[in-house]
């Protein structure tokens, strides 16, 4: 997988499930890499940070389920 991908769509989560309630607010997004789209969490969100569709993000790591975790590029 390429290290960079673009945001296809996103949301900032304020009301989370039991496992994530300590991490709010955080960002999840569908990222697009060529023709493939996957769901990802985007690390490094701070309140009022500007996010938009088409924005580039960078691969950060993979979680235990094999899900990619991206991060914002500063």
């Amino acid at each position, binding site marked *: 997988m390429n290290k960079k991908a673009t945001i*296809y769509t996103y949301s900032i989560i304020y*009301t989370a499930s039991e496992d994530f309630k300590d991490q709010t607010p955080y960002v999840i997004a569908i990222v697009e890499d060529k023709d493939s789209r996957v769901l990802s969490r985007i690390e490094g969100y701070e309140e009022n940070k500007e996010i938009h569709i088409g924005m580039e993000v960078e691969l950060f790591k993979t979680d235990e389920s094999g899900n990619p975790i991206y991060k914002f590029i500063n």
Partner: protein
Amino acid sequence: MLRSVSVIGIGETRMGKLTSKSIRMLIKEAGNKAIEDAGIEKERIQALYMGNYNASYWSIQSHIGALASETLEIGHIPTIRTEGACATGSLAFRQGLNAIAAGIYDVVLIGGVEKMTHKPIETITTGLASAADFEYEVNLGSTFPSLFAMIANRYFYEYGDVRKEMAMAAVQNHDNALLNSNAQMHKKITIDQVFNGFPVAHPLTVYDCSLVTDGAAFVVLAATEVAEKIAKKRVVEVIGTGHAGDSLTLAGKKSITTLEATVKAANEAYKMAGITAKDIGFAEVHDCFTITQIINTEDLGFFEKGRGAKALAEGKTALDGQIPINTSGGLKAKGHPIGATGLSQINEVVTQIRGEAGARQIKNANIGLNHNLGGTAATCVVNVFKGR
């Protein structure tokens, strides 16, 4: 359909935070109401189909079919529980409908029940999230509101910002609910309140979300030939039905601003009924979030793609509009007791067709539909009803 099928009885509880009512009590109240409404002896009921989404998790109670038949004292008839996320109730309805259409039974009872409000919001959110893909979505931290929030943000990108019209959908549904004594919310709200509500998943605030609800709803179905002999009220025929699916995951969908399961289920139902979207007079659509209501009215063919928000703003979906939407108050304001929701929608459609909707009665309610989505539009059921 092999054999025509009609609704002869409806019954539901009031929707809300019903702290003092157990699952059993909800079933008893709504089930008996529907049977009484049909005016039939319990011995006539040949099978029971129960929709329940997640009592297994929220109340450690499975096997709702047997629980319901014992509670309603309807004996040794076959029972089964269906589960298909928020479309659970309509799936139960389809099973009963199919069995009568196939000639297996003449009269069946269908119910849906959910008890949610006794749990803390994180437990409710986790239980709801299990209708998404646990491994690829929930494990990453997504919640239901966030999945639909992503649909909203993409919709804004493709068709323009409809944030204001989303708020108007919430305001309209709250207005309708004010006229419905069974609704959970009896509270007028404003567009500003929606904008300034606490954020749940950007861009959705609490007022863009459907409610967390306890409630039950039931329907008695009969073969139309039998219905015409035994029904006490206007017989409401099911003239079309459709059921379609899509990927469980949001990222797996080709488009996330046209919900393909809705398009396919609606086309199947319209074709069976021999009608087009233009013939539908009113509809209860699955407004799990305000953006979904707008998208649904497009995918069901009421308005062109990208025009749903404008139509709503022009009043076309209001009680006195061209095609009233969610006259009951919808999931947003009547409530969303997951497993009961589809059947509660059907209760409203039948109530309107019978002319029994009181202050929220619309004119010319003759052909109406219910549209019920499950998960991130991974399951969809559409049923079309017509008064006889």
